[in-house]
């Protein structure tokens, strides 16, 4: 009964709540960026992916897991097998039990998934003042207009609060976050990460690169998908043309 009552209460409140959030969220439209991966022939930019991965490794990975991506997937970023082995080996994972029944630590292998910063969700919350840093593997698919959203979120922090707004401890003001009060401190700022390839080290560029990387992580088969699609649709168009001719031929003796 108890559960049912709670559920009915939720159902009744759902409709009003949704509109309060929709109306009171005060988030402006998300600005669109130029992405190399948009459009029917879009592809990922390997250099941007590598820079994005660097940002993830050096910054985001201290709070956010990416459990669905494996080191071997990094091949798509242009790394070769040895480089991937070396990257994986920088991390250690718990494995086991061995023949003696003990768990042991070993260096990560290319077949391992990215190592999570916290052993479980509660530990992640505890370390972040009660807010849970969500897994980033699917982030750009899990938000409307995801690639642009992540860019906007990274660049949307404001020091000057709108009039009358107060933040509690550990809260920050972000223009694009639903409800605006986010429990993630601004993770990036100008020149906070050094690029080896001479790309400018600005917040905007960082935001583009991390978003590029997260888009790939959420949708690793995008290039193959679009390439296959092109062939399939080309074939179908030709096939449709032929079938139309056949149909016309068959029907030509009618009326």
């Amino acid at each position, binding site marked *: 009964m108890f559960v049912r009552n709670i559920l009915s209460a939720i159902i009744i409140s759902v409709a009003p709540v*949704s*509109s309060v959030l929709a109306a009171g969220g005060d988030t402006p439209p998300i600005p669109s960026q130029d992405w190399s991966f948009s459009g029917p022939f879009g592809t990922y930019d390997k250099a941007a992916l590598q820079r994005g991965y660097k940002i993830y490794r050096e910054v985001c990975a201290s709070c956010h897991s990416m459990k669905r991506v494996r080191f071997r997937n990094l091949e798509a970023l242009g790394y070769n097998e040895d480089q991937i082995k070396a990257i994986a080996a920088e991390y250690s994972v718990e494995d086991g039990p061995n023949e003696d029944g003990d768990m042991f630590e070993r260096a990560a292998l290319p077949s391992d998934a990215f190592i999570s910063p916290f052993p479980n969700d509660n530990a992640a919350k505890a370390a972040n003042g009660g807010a849970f840093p969500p897994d980033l593997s*699917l982030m750009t*698919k*899990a938000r409307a207009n995801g690639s642009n959203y992540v860019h906007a979120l990274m660049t949307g922090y404001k020091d000057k609060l709108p009039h009358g707004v107060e933040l509690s401890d550990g809260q920050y003001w972000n223009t694009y976050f639903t409800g605006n009060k986010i429990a993630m401190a601004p993770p990036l700022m100008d020149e906070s990460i050094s690029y080896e390839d001479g790309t400018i080290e600005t917040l905007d560029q960082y935001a583009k690169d991390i978003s590029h990387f997260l888009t790939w992580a959420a949708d690793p088969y995008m290039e193959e998908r679009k390439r*296959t699609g092109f062939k*399939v*649709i080309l074939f179908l168009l030709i096939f*449709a043309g032929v079938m139309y001719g056949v149909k016309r031929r068959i029907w030509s003796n009618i009326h």
Partner: protein
Amino acid sequence: MSNAPREKFDNTVVEWVDSRLPIFTMMKNEYGVFPTPRNFNWFWNFGAIAMFMLITMIATGIVLAMHYTADTKLAFDSVERIMRDVNGGWLIRYIHMNGASFFFIAVYIHIFRGMYYGSYKAPRELLWILGVIIFLLMMATAFIGYVLPWGQMSLWGATVITNLFSAIPFVGESIVTLLWGGFSIDNPTLTRFFALHYLLPFVIVGVVLLHIWALHVTGSNNPLGLEPKSKKDTLPFHPYYTSKDFFGIIVFIIFYAIFIFYMPDALGHPDNYIPANPLVTPPHIVPEWYFLPFYAILRAVTFNMNIYMLAGLGLLAVFMVEFIWRHKPKYLNGFLGFLLLVLGSGLAVFGLLADLNQGWEIPMSAANLAPISAKFGGVLAMFGSIGLLVILPWLDNHPIRSARFRPLFRIFMIIFTISVFILGYAGSQAADKVYFMEFNNTMLAQIFTGFYFMFFLIILPLLSRFEKGRELPKSINEAVLSKAQKAGA
């Protein structure tokens, strides 16, 4: 299925089989030489397209089921593993996911075709009703399928919809417990949903076979709505319609493929890429697009139905049956009819006002005597809106089938179609979204829900009684020839 003597086949193997089980004869009669009206337009392609989609869904579904795990802890991960680690898994899943939408697109067009050209009328009532049953089964299958990936929308969509059943008096609670397999949506819910999601498509196949069987008894309707009278009016199904259907299916697949390969997630909801979490309610719970018109009807009923409204509606129903539907009243005279009309509408309006103004001092307070709560009323309206399709052949008993020869019906049919789209839009928006002044989304939904029911219950019976209709051509062949002559001249 005719009793005509069997013709021998030249091929000895075929003949050997056919003389023992006349399956080749059946295929020849039903798909080879089957006499089909010669004047189909492109709307007649969508049956074959729906059949193609059903086969596609079953084929891709079985492959998905090989890799899917029905366990609340593993379901989301197993779907992501299909997307990332199974060879071609992303393609299979995107075909299945977008396939549900394109299946509904095909079926909605198919249903529209049936309504516009009067295909539901005698002698095809049962064929039509079997179609409505397929539609209901599809809705159940798609709803249950959407729960399987166990994302946020899966869980919360299932929560909203299964909770509706609790509004049914007396048995509601037990039905919900049975659906859930417990006292909340949890692992037992997911496992039974998976079992049902595997089962229902094959039930659909069964009903589709009955649907086609019934079709082959009555033969197809056509854009003129005339029965074929002579051999000149028909063509053998093969090769004329096999070639036309084949072409139509390929064109349909092109649109389908654009979604699969270039915008595979456009028809879905981003929240379903967040693993289900019973502690976090998504800000905006919306069903899949193909349910939106019905979701709007569900939410439009925000008032209780008290005894005044029910009595009023009852009297109006008696009036409609006696004076409009029967054409000649059987039991009542004109004065009584007038009384029914005035009393019925008066009571219904009074009941509605009484419900909206709970402060009114009226005999037997409306709040106390509302046998149908707003929630149950919504559920009744939602299922009723599909139930109306079942009795459509009796609501519209005009002798002319095709809207081509019924100008008034045609106009209302077009308005009806537009209003279903508007209902779909209303279903996608928050209930209290304001359009202008006091006019909000609930009111929009209420107006068009009202029109939906009026179309079936008032407009169609009135039209069948009073619409004259245009003169019908003598035969299909004649109409086709005169059109060809006009085009040639």
